[in-house]
């Protein structure tokens, strides 16, 4: 809820605002990401120091950094082109629906399609790799 309210207030739910940012016409979004990252930085730092588990799930407070590989670069590049074209990113798209912006459903439909396509292809790729490996044996 707070996350969505913040997205609404920061106007990231409006693709136009994001596109204006990317065209250097309104750099205010720097403050959105900066403000958000500053708050999470404090929370994560304090959380890790506490060295205990979360009340609802018993998960340990810890950093979970994702490993780096070529996909991080390649995926980031594809995402960047998509974001630059449409002005939407996943969280902001959900929030956009909340402010009654129904054309965004096109964007959300595209995201599911894209996520499915990459999952399907990577699935097929890893399956054929396994087969090749099996044949090599």
């Amino acid at each position, binding site marked *: *809820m707070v*996350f*969505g*309210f*913040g997205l*609404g207030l*920061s106007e990231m739910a*409006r693709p136009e605002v994001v*596109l204006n940012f990317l065209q250097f*016409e309104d750099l*205010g979004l720097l*403050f*959105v*990401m*900066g*403000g*958000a990252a*500053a*708050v*999470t930085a404090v*929370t*994560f730092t304090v*959380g890790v120091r506490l060295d205990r*588990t*979360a*009340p609802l*799930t018993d998960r340990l*407070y810890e950093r979970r950094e*994702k490993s780096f590989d070529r*996909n991080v*670069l390649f*995926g*980031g*590049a*594809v*995402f960047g*082109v*998509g974001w*630059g*074209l*449409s002005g939407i*990113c*996943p*969280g902001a798209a*959900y*929030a956009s629906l909340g*402010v*009654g*912006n129904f054309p965004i459903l*096109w964007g*959300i*439909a*595209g*995201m599911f399609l*894209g*996520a499915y396509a*990459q*999952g*399907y292809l990577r*699935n097929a790729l890893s399956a054929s790799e396994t087969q090749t490996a099996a044949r090599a044996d």
Partner: protein
Amino acid sequence: MLSLPLAVFAGTPLEGFFPNGVLHYALGGVLIGLGVSVIYLWTGIIAGASTFLETTLSYVSDLPRFNKGKYVRSRDWRVVFTVGIVAGAAVYALTLGPGGFTTEVQPWRLFVGGTLVGVGTRLGKGCTSGHGVCGVGSGSNTSFVNVATFMLLAIGTAQLVAAMGVTP
């Protein structure tokens, strides 16, 4: 629209870059950060928005990739999280906000761009919330690299599309 007056950059050469002021942006950012913090402190979960795309597909697809244990275990709360985002934005729209808003950006841009976002965020293991807010907030090098990459490409694409005269 909540347009708070420009204070910080008034009278400086930077003013032109912030035609709508910075306060509501910064406040929105702090709230996004607080939302992530509340989830982290209650559950220990680092909240990214784009994993929802894959975990939700596990309801309707039996591809192994979408049915990894950690996806199936987290898919219910991710639906709750996403509904929460929608609801939170709706509360904003009905209280402080303009009461509703419809984009002018053309559907094909939303759809094609959305598809690329779907592919890119899942390949790159995160989006603006997972890498941009949570990853940068926890000082992850992977996230810095990812954010720098998508920022550069997004700026390039937006400029190119605008230069080709596609508006909105």
